[in-house]
Structure formats: structure tokens, C-alpha cells
């Protein structure tokens, strides 16, 4: 994994913070959905944003996929765009859990709701640990027809330099459901994050 100038300690620190944020998010979601939710973070990778489209091309190439993007802004220059990608068939599973009945709301609304919940619970957990707080822009759906995923991602990641790729697997009690989350961050935000990580490491 490319570390783009992160030291081993900084990377370890970031991984741990993300794991804890995931733990907090999964707990919240489990209570909200009234079911056992397991959020796994097998890996995080920090890559150049231009690499992102290729990364996901394979996984989403032949499926009907959707992409929901939401901006986040915090203190100390922490900001970026969070993108959640899923296969449409998976999205239907979780909508049932959120209490949506068929035809209740439009598919787009359901997707934005789910994504917003996933993104904000996770990012809030992250922010808490670095003593920051975040505000969010409204989520927007950039849904995709087959094969368009790559072009969409290219367009979105075009003006960001770095991407933090967080692979999330949700396991619900009797289903499994997969989605990917990417956090796109501008160059100076990476430096800011490194500074924050160093500060945390100093405390210990």
C-alpha cells in the first residue's frame, strides 16, 4: 500500500482510529436497525486519486451500481468528499431493514438516506477521536448505468489529489451486504491529518 509520506506510526495510528470509528458506527447502526451489524475494515489504503477509477472498475464493471457522494468539513483543515459505492441489489436489502416498504420512497431517496447514515456515523466517530467535529453537505446520487462507474469516478476524483480507500463489509444477521467507501481528500488536508496524528502519538 502506498503511504504517500505517512510514517509507519502514523499509518498505524490512522488504522486504529478508523477501526474504532467503525466500531462506534456499527454499534450505533445495530441499535438503530435492531439487528446485529458487523462492520469490518480489512484494510485502508491511501492512494493517488487518479488511481481510484481503475480500482473499482473490476468490481462494479458488469453490475448496476450506484454512487453517492457527500462533502464533509471540519476544523483544522480536515475536509473532503466521501463516496459510497454499491451494487443496486445490495441496496435493496438494507432498505428493508431501514423500514422502507416497497414504493414508500424513491430509490434515490433510499440510497441517499443509507449512504448518509453510513458516512456520517463513521466520520463522526472519526472526528470524535481527533477532537474535531464535522459538518456535511447533502448527499447526492451519481447513479450509474453499467460501465459508467469508471467515468463517474474519474469526474469526481479529478480535482482531488489523494484518496483514502476504506473497504467496508457489512454483515447483517442473515444477509451479507457489501459496499465500498472512499474518502477523497485534498493535498493540504493530508498534511493536516498527519499533523493531527502526530499530536495524538505525542500524547502517548
Amino acid at each position, binding site marked *: 500500500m502506498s503511504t504517500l509520506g505517512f510514517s509507519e506510526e502514523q499509518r498505524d495510528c490512522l488504522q486504529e482510529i478508523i477501526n474504532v470509528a467503525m466500531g462506534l458506527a456499527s454499534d*450505533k447502526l445495530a441499535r*438503530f436497525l435492531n439487528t446485529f451489524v458487523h462492520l469490518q475494515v480489512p484494510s485502508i489504503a491511501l492512494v493517488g486519486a487518479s488511481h481510484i477509477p481503475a480500482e473499482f472498475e473490476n468490481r462494479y464493471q458488469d453490475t448496476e451500481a450506484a454512487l453517492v457522494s457527500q462533502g464533509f468539513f471540519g476544523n483544522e483543515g480536515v475536509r473532503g468528499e466521501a463516496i459510497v459505492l454499491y451494487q443496486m441489489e445490495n441496496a435493496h436489502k438494507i432498505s428493508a431493514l431501514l423500514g422502507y416498504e416497497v414504493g414508500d420512497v424513491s430509490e434515490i431517496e433510499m440510497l441517499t438516506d443509507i449512504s*448518509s447514515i453510513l458516512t456520517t456515523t463513521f466520520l463522526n466517530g472519526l472526528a470524535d477521536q481527533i477532537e474535531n467535529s464535522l459538518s456535511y453537505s447533502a448527499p447526492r446520487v451519481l447513479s450509474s448505468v453499467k460501465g459508467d462507474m469508471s467515468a463517474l469516478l474519474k469526474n469526481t476524483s479529478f480535482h482531488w489529489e489523494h484518496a483514502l480507500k476504506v473497504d467496508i463489509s457489512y454483515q447483517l444477521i442473515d444477509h451479507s451486504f457489501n459496499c465500498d467507501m472512499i474518502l477523497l481528500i485534498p493535498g493540504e488536508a493530508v498534511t493536516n491529518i498527519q499533523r493531527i496524528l502526530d499530536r495524538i502519538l505525542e500524547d502517548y
Partner: protein
Amino acid sequence: MPHAWLNSPILAQLNSGVIVVDDEYRIHYLNAFIERHASVQLSEVQGKSIFAVFADLPEAWLKRKLMSVLDLKTPAFSSWEQRQYIFKLPHLRPITSSSQYMAQNCSMLPLSSEQAEQPLICILIEDATDAFVYQQHLSKTLIELERANRQDGLTKVLNRRYWEEQLKQEIHRSQRYHHPLSLILFDLDKFKDLNDKYGHLGGDFVLVQLASFIGSLLRDSDLFGRYGGEEFGIILPDTSLDGAIEVAERICLAVAEYPMLFNQQTIRVSVSMGVAELIPKQHLLHDDLIRCADMALYNAKRAGRNRVCSYLAGETEYQKKVN
């Protein structure tokens, strides 16, 4: 006064609505924007349920959204593209806008403050009516543009370019699924004389009327287009030669008996029609089929006009003009 910490000169001036509710949906605060647009007074509605104060709220949906904000302590959003509005409020520009109610972008934010004794939710309502109206105009323009791309400006039937495209597609489809396909080409008899007699306005008038009339005689699946000045074509999918001839003869007869009133004068016209069926082995390009129908049309003219002729398999050249 309760919630003095919420009262601020900024909230009073803000051009967006702010409503603060608790976990039982009771109103704790609303700002001047809401007071003015909804014609309510904070003093009168404070403590009441939001559903009692605002009519026609999507109750189940809104409750679910608000609960998620409280449970997860994360914001929730709704855009005008999903739901045009949540709160039925008149908007700021009643004269120029075509929409009656304010289109809204809503954010629902968890309020955490030491001064709040219980968890509260702040509902932020932004007026998105301009975007909504703009989007509607844009959609309308796009539809019209698309129609313009397909339509013949005068007669409103399909224009030649689009009609020929459709012909190619229908030929494809016909060959793929082995369904018959026929083509009628026709034109107005002695159109030049008509133009001379009634002027171009009269000529145009006749074209428009006739196109409309003939269009009403066709099935939805038939594709009617303007091929030239006074020449038209009809693509008949799933139709064999016999069926097409029947249609053509019906049209021919009806047109001959169709009186049009122009400048208090009655105009009657007739058409000559050529019919051809797609012969997959013979017609390799759409031009080939057109040429066959054209040959038949020419024969119809030569045979005296106001009639239907069909292309006979094997014919390869136009009949010589019989003086």
C-alpha cells in the same frame, strides 16, 4: 424566556426557515422566516406538535427521518428533487414562478448544546424554488428540442432525417425477427398547380391539413414522415404487401373525399401512392426499398394519378412514359 439561547439577530434575518423540535416532535422554536411564511406566531405554537401546526406533513416519513437524527446523532437531508417540499409554504416570488409552493431543501441536524436540557433537532428549510422552476423550464426546453430534432417544422410529422433513421431500424428489426415490413410513398397530385392557384400559403395549409388527416388514419406503430416538398412516406411494421395496399387504398379514397376550407374556398386534393414490401434478399439497403416504392409511385402517376400502385417483384426499371 425559554430557549433564549436560540434567539439571535441572525436567525431573525435569515432567509431560510429554522424550526427546532424535540423527540416528541413538539416545537421549541421557529424563526421569523417561518412565522412570516406560515403565518404563525412562535408564542402561539410553542410546545405544540409540529404535525398539529403544519398541515399535510408526510408524518410517517418525517418521524422516521427525525428519529434517525436523534438516534444516530447524524444529520439527515431531503432535497427538492426527491420531495418538492415538506412544509407547504408559499414562496418568495409568486408572480414569476409557475409553482404554487416553495420547493425546499431540508436539513435535519442534531442540536447538542449544554443549554439544551433534552435532545433537540434543528430543521433547516432552504428555498429552492428557483432551482425547481429552472429545472422545469430546462426539461420543457429539452423535450421541445428533441421534438424539433424529429419533427418536420411545418406538418409536425417526422422529418426526413429522423424518418429515414427509423426506416433503417425497422428494416433491421424486420430482418432480425422475420416480420414483414412495408413502405408507402405518396405525394400530392398536381401540387404545383395548387400552389399557383392558392399561393404558397394555400399550399402549406393543404400540406398541414392533409398530414394531420392522414396521420389520424394510421396505427400508433406506423411511422409517418415528410420525405420531400409534397412527398411523404409511411413505414408499416409487421405489415405485408396486401395489408399495406389495403391501408394505401383506404387513405387514397379518404383523401379524395376530404374537403379543406381555405380562404372560404373548398380545396380537394388527391394523392398517388406507391407501395412496396421489404424483400430481405433483394433489399440490402434502405435505399433499395425506397427505390422500389418510388417506382410504384411513379407508375401510379403514369397510370393517371389518384391511385395506388404496388411494386411488383422483378421490376427493375421505371415504365417508360406513355404519351
